[in-house]
């Protein structure tokens, strides 16, 4: 037992010698005691600009020369994917500003509005119209929040799609088949509130093969 312990100690000392020989800089502790003065905290990693292609904080220095510019194309990076908002994409612009009803706080925010949605998104429903009978307001929502839609749009296939009333709403009929490009006028109700909606869903285009568009012509309470 004692022999095993002594051989273990000897091996450990050998290991320490090797470590000091190869890994320790003179005058520096073996294990850093903390953050050196003037250095960023460890969790911030490398200072910006030290790695090729790394993001850098924007500086706005003065320019010596006169210049002009023109934007030719703006596309999402592959790692941004579908989750990133492209400020130069009409689809994204429609998506963020029409789904949140940002132009007014209440009232009819759907009439004349359209919303682009991704027909390849997992699950569904893909799009919806949310009606608030208390404020008599309306908003368009995408698939991620349309589970509570008053009217939902789902099962998008080649020539037609399905739509129907969401939880708490009735009318329609309940599940209807719609044809792309055809305008429908339907009446939905909840309690004593009845609302007539004129809408149309247009299919994808060669330029945007994964997108369909929900157009709401009018909402009448």
């Amino acid at each position, binding site marked *: 037992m004692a022999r095993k312990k002594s051989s273990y100690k000897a091996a450990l000392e050998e290991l320490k010698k090797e470590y000091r020989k190869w890994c320790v800089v003179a005058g520096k502790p073996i294990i850093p005691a903390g953050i050196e003065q003037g250095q960023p905290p460890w969790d911030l990693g490398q200072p910006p600009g030290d790695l090729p*292609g790394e993001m850098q904080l924007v500086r706005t220095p003065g320019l010596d020369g006169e210049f*002009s*510019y023109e934007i030719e*194309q703006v596309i*999402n990076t592959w790692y941004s994917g579908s989750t990133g908002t492209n400020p130069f994409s009409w689809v994204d612009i429609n998506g963020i500003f029409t789904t949140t009803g940002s132009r007014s*706080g209440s009232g009819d925010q759907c009439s004349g509005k359209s919303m682009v949605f991704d027909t390849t998104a997992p699950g569904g429903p893909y799009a919806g119209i949310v009606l608030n009978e208390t404020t008599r307001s309306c908003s368009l929502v995408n698939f991620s929040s349309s589970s509570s839609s008053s009217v939902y749009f789902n099962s998008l296939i080649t020539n037609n799609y399905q739509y129907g009333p969401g939880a708490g709403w009735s009318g329609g009929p309940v599940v209807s088949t719609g044809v792309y490009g055809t305008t429908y006028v339907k009446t939905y109700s909840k309690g004593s509130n009845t609302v007539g909606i004129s809408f149309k869903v247009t299919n994808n285009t060669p330029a945007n093969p994964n997108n369909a568009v929900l157009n709401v012509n009018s909402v009448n309470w």
Partner: protein
Amino acid sequence: MLAFLLILVFTVIKTHAQECRRIQPIKSPDAVEAPLAEGVRAVKEQIPVDRQTVEKTMQKIAESWNTPEMSKKLANSFYEKDRLMDSMNGNAPVDARLRILSVGSYRLINQGIKSDPGGDLLISRISVIAKTQIEYNNPTNGFQRRQGEQEYIIKITQKGFLK
């Protein structure tokens, strides 16, 4: 003799199964291929565009977003330019702004020189990676922001650069 014939047959089959390695070009945006402008002559050696100019350009792009200047800064070849401007004019709240969160790597795609009475113009087509954030106030939900990361293909014209 039979063995020789078998070897010959297998050799022929093997030879047919081979093919020369072909170059499959990676598809790139059309804008990259378009000529820089009329009357532009190519540069013998590319002249670097400094980072400050690129960052300043990105700031100007952000400042002009959702303003009347925005459409003027989009090239005629910008894909669905009219549709974008219709969407902006129809849907974007007046207070919506674009913020550049960071400017990443950039690369010079191509470059040319155009003669001008005021001095030659250096025209550079550049690809820039930038992180952006759309910011606006929603009356119901309050302050909103939408982040994204895009590749910008921009054409920078530096005036009097090569006097």
